């Protein structure tokens, strides 16, 4: 339970800047998730907090102490490592109790704590196994138990649930949240799992190339991403991005345009090149467009692949202008196709022409150059009638 503060932390390897001028200020007892693409510096950030690597510059404060130069053992942290790092020469019990033994806990308290930790990670009855005799998930659970058995001020967890199956993951998630509440510990948690980041954290810190992109509560990141990168990174499947130009009260993409009130938004002017983003769930088939908060007019596209997920179906819509098809060598996304999610009960087939609308209230506008967000949601143009007319004309 301690405040954690990173001030201008930079970590440079020979030719790579793993962490770049990072500023983070975590409140006491906050649960923060670090997310970002592979190699963006998440693990390195944790390592600087843990004291395993010294930042090239910058300072780190835990509680009231500046710890930049303190050794890990004096920082009051526990850590789950991405590479698990079990002690191969110790059995599970010894691995879990290692930190306690270092602190000369009495045997019975040690037993008690280890049992409790083993229960949390569901490893009861495996305490005398060696790491080499366990499955990948079991090993990872030992690593978690090793961290939670102690009573640190700060937990650092690097992908702790990566090898666990969905169900156990959900369970562990709940257990970790409960622990967090119960112990009131500050937790920095690296995950690649959106659901974890969304549900567990008080705030999400999104990193890219060593730089902090946004730090905000999960829904803020989801609904008001600070820039195109965050928008694309948060949410699975990812937001659709479309290059567009601001017209006269319209947003003109290749093949379709959306009308909106240019004047209601600061920082866009006619002729600007912008990028707009729309999440798959904010695209609607014409039939359901009523569900949208502010449906745009529909336009027609052809379905490509369907991916039924059980609780929804992902529909890949062919790019409006499918100029090239070089055998899948470029992404769907790069080709400006759209991904839509629909209810599994929907009657839809591949290679079918459909009419779709998008929810104008959920359109995100980004600056084409900087990628910074300009606006989240646009409002319909004042001249609604005109649009309705045009809509009607189009529909015919």
């Amino acid at each position: 339970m301690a405040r954690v503060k990173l001030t201008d932390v930079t970590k440079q390897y020979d030719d790579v800047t793993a962490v770049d001028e990072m500023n983070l200020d975590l409140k006491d007892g906050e649960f923060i998730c670090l997310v970002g693409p592979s190699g963006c510096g998440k693990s390195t950030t944790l390592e600087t907090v843990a004291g395993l690597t010294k930042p090239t510059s910058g300072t780190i404060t835990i509680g009231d102490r500046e710890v930049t130069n303190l050794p890990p053992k004096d920082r009051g942290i526990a850590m789950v490592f991405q590479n698990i790092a079990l002690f191969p020469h110790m059995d599970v019990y010894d691995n879990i109790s290692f930190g306690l033994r270092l602190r000369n806990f009495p045997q019975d308290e040690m037993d008690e704590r280890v049992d409790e930790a083993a229960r949390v990670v569901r490893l009861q009855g495996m305490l005398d196994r060696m790491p080499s005799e366990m499955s990948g998930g079991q090993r990872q659970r030992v690593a978690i138990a090793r961290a939670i058995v102690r009573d640190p001020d700060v937990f650092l967890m690097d992908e702790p649930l990566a090898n666990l199956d969905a169900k156990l993951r959900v369970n562990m998630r709940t257990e970790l949240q409960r622990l967090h509440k119960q112990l009131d510990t500050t937790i920095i948690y690296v995950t690649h799992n959106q659901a974890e980041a969304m549900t567990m954290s008080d705030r999400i810190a999104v990193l890219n190339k060593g730089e902090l992109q946004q730090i905000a509560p999960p829904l803020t990141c989801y609904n008001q991403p600070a820039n195109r990168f965050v928008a694309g990174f948060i949410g699975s499947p990812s937001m659709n991005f479309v290059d567009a130009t601001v017209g006269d009260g319209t947003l003109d993409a290749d093949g379709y345009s959306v009308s909106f009130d240019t004047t209601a938004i600061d920082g866009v002017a006619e002729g600007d090149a912008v990028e707009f983003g729309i999440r798959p769930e904010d695209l609607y088939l014409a039939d359901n467009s009523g569900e949208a908060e502010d449906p745009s007019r529909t336009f027609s596209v052809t379905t490509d692949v369907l991916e039924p997920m059980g609780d929804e179906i992902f529909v890949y819509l062919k790019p409006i202008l499918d100029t090239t098809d070089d055998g899948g060598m470029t992404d769907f996304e790069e080709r400006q196709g759209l991904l839509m999610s629909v209810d599994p009960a929907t009657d839809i087939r591949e290679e079918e022409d459909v009419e779709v609308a998008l929810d104008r209230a959920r359109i995100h506008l980004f600056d084409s150059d900087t990628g910074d967000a300009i606006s989240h949601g646009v409002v319909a143009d004042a001249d609604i009638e005109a649009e309705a007319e045009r809509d009607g004309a189009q529909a015919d």
Partner: protein
Amino acid sequence: MSSGGDGILSRLATWTENLSEQAYAYLLLVPGFLVLLLFAFWPLASAIRMSFFADVITSASLGEFVGFQNYVRLLTNTNALAPAAFVDPSFETPILEQALFMTVLFAVLSVTGETLLGFLYAMLMKAEYKGRRLVRLLIILPWAIPIVIQGMIFFLLFRPGYGLLTEPLQQLGIFSSLPLNTTFDGFVIVTVADIWKTSAFMALLILAGLESVNQDLYEVADVMGASRWQRFRYITFPLVFPVLMVAMLFRTMGALRVYGIIESTTVGCSTVPSMTCLVTQMMFGSATQYGSAAAVSVLIAIVVGLFIMVYLGFIRRSNQSLGLA
């Protein structure tokens, strides 16, 4: 222990924890290098100094300062008191009777033999089968035999008349009837004796290297389709390489300083004069030649140093880190 003591200890611990990596490294090196400084580096320096002073064969003291004269006489084979030629520039002395060449040849042969045999032994010690523990033990035992006894064994095997192997080998035309007195035969005997004893050293080190290779990598290689040889070539060897280099390095240094086995087999320094033979004879013989003995030591060190350079070159080239390259 009083709480005050704990306080000091923990303060000390904190102090060391906060040292920079550099300072911490130096701190860790202090105990070792202190011992080495007193009992190795200092006597070494004294000995090197000795090599620049004249021999006084009738006294334990050093003569006057003569610069490199001792070296010159050794390298030109003009020190009549030298028990054998260090090197004979005129090459009238047979190669095996020139300490330098004899020793180098010995080192090359014995280290090669020991490495090959050591690798085989190491594999044998590693594979799992019943009785492996016994085999490990048996392989290591020759190394545990005092050199005096090792010499005795080989002496008894090759002694004239009675030696178990003297006659058969003579009849095969490989050895003379007095192998311990013949330079070539004696050289072979000493080499074999050394290989026999010291392969265990190699084997042990290589085994340790083998054992510390992450076994998971073999699974990967297996699936990738590596044959046994390829597994060895691409995984075992490169991963054991650093250890192998350490082992070979030290064995080469040991072999280039060979002495005990020559005397203890009774082959003797006059039959097979190694470089260290010269040092010991000059230093402990009745006619002490401290200056020349020290000079030979320095020459040995130079020869060894040249070999080590070759090793370091290898290590560097193969991109393996020994910390040295």
